[in-house]
């Protein structure tokens, strides 16, 4: 591995640690941001004093804040995130059971975004200025402006209620994945369409494109092999940045479609005021988000030798 790459990796790793610590600290203080007594909020005012004391002790809230913080960090390192108030299992087990569903949804949403945006952007760039181009831009604008908490119900009305083609909710098979993936992926498809179209138009007049045409390479080959490949870089940047957001955005999509992922678990925990579980869920999503961004950033820098490591 070249020294410059190694130095970059070390620097990126050095930044990862304070970032993770910052996220953990924010999550730790969540429970302390509860106005009043968190134990009373969780159990309700009518709970007995003994029950309150028991919960306070089990959550460690009877200890000084720095001891709580130290124990919290130690717990995160050992994977011990405490006990859910209402479920009969640990927070870490509940999260482990739900994470795969969320990753499955986020990956499918990414796939939807690619499948929609690539043909649209190519169509728009090759037919620049025509109604096809304007249509693709309109799709992008509407996709960017459409919140997923509206798109989801609209898709349910059309495909589940009116046409009866797809199930409304749950996670029983491939058919259940389609509507949630569309809901989560459309926003990203809109962004990618815009970026890829602009990027294609930028490389259109490059020398290598002219050279390929002059050599007699077919127009399809010029677009797919010479232009698309070179126009992909900003698209990959955005894709890697946005994949993490898909994990966070899944909270709403999972709630709409009763998708049994960690986003829905978070909202259920919020509704039952199960704060240890809320804390665990937020922690899991945030740490996944940070790691996904870290890995995609490294992967993308290593994949493209033209990127400098100076910044």
């Amino acid at each position, binding site marked *: 591995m070249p020294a410059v790459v190694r130095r970059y990796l070390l620097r990126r790793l050095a930044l990862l640690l304070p*970032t993770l610590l910052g996220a953990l600290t*924010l999550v730790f203080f969540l429970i302390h941001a509860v106005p009043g007594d968190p134990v009373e909020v969780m159990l309700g005012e009518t709970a007995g004093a003994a029950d309150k004391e028991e919960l306070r002790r089990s959550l460690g809230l009877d200890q000084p804040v720095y001891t709580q913080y130290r124990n919290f960090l130690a717990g995160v390192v050992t994977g011990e995130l405490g006990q859910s108030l209402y479920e009969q299992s640990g927070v870490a087990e509940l999260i482990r059971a739900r994470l795969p569903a969320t990753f499955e949804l986020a990956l499918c949403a990414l796939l939807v975004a690619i499948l929609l945006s690539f043909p649209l952007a190519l169509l728009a760039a090759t037919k620049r200025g025509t109604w096809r181009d304007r249509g693709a831009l309109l799709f992008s604008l509407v996709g960017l402006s459409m919140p997923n908490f509206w798109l989801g119900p609209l898709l349910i*009305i059309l495909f589940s209620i009116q046409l009866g083609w797809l199930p409304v909710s749950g996670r029983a098979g491939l058919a259940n994945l389609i509507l949630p993936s569309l809901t989560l992926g459309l926003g990203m498809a809109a962004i990618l369409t815009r970026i890829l179209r602009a990027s294609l138009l930028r490389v259109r007049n490059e020398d290598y494109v002219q050279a390929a045409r002059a050599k007699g390479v077919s127009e399809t080959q010029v677009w797919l092999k010479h232009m698309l490949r070179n126009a992909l870089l900003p698209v990959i940047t955005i894709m890697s940045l946005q994949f993490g957001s898909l994990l966070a955005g899944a*909270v709403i999509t999972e*709630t709409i479609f009763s998708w049994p992922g960690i986003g829905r678990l*978070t*909202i259920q925990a919020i509704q039952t005021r199960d704060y240890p579980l809320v804390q665990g869920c*937020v922690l899991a999503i*945030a740490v996944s988000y940070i790691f996904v961004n870290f890995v995609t950033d490294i992967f993308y820098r290593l994949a493209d030798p033209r990127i400098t490591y100076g910044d």
Partner: protein
Amino acid sequence: MATERWFYIGIGILLLFAAAALLAPALAPHDATRQDLANDLVSYSIQHPLGTDKLGRDILSRLIYGARISLTVGLATVALSVAIGLVIGSLSGYFGSWVDQLLMRLVDILMAFPGILLAIAFTAVLGPGLDHVVLALCLIGWTGYARLVRGEILSLRERDFIQAARALGCKPSRTILHHLVPNLLPPLVIQATFGLAAAIIAEGSLSFLGLGVEPPTPSWGAMLNEGRQFLLVAPHLTAYPGIAIMLTVLALNLVGDGLQQKLEPHDH
């Protein structure tokens, strides 16, 4: 030019919603919170052109009052975020060295956290309420402005007019406020326009999850959430607030694109 036309269409839509928000008491045909259980889930009538909800409340009136919530939360969030970002970014860019290092690492750390998740978590523990929503959205919202302001100041700092102001003995506060801020306004206004769209969607998301304003205050996100239970029998409950949010955000995106072309044409 096509973009020019769309820019004015965006401005027109925004003015319409702003007028609805400002003149809500005069424009709304009914009291937005008055229940009329005998007339629940009406889809259309002369008294209720956009129908009524489960509690018989007039949808049109709730939409008009909902514009107030969306725009107030959006504007308050953006104003507060820009103010914090301006201060932090100016300090960071103007003074450089360890101040810059410290503040920008803080920005890096906060930006690494998914914003909407933090907002969900904080409104969940703080409890519902407009002020809590604004606070939760500002927690991370300011970071983008701080980074933008810092970058602009770094490039402006070395320009002749700033060097001249410094050489003439201008105090840092005066240099920042009178010489730097006016020059970084265009990019800031563009980012704030897109930021307003994001804040309106975020408020809608929080209200949709039951974490925004407290019922019975009408909010577009909360109306969508209530309508979700009646998708089969009353799809209009979901349709209208969704159209309102989409139109507002669409208009802001159009205006943002237009401003970008007008104020920063060299970037296109």
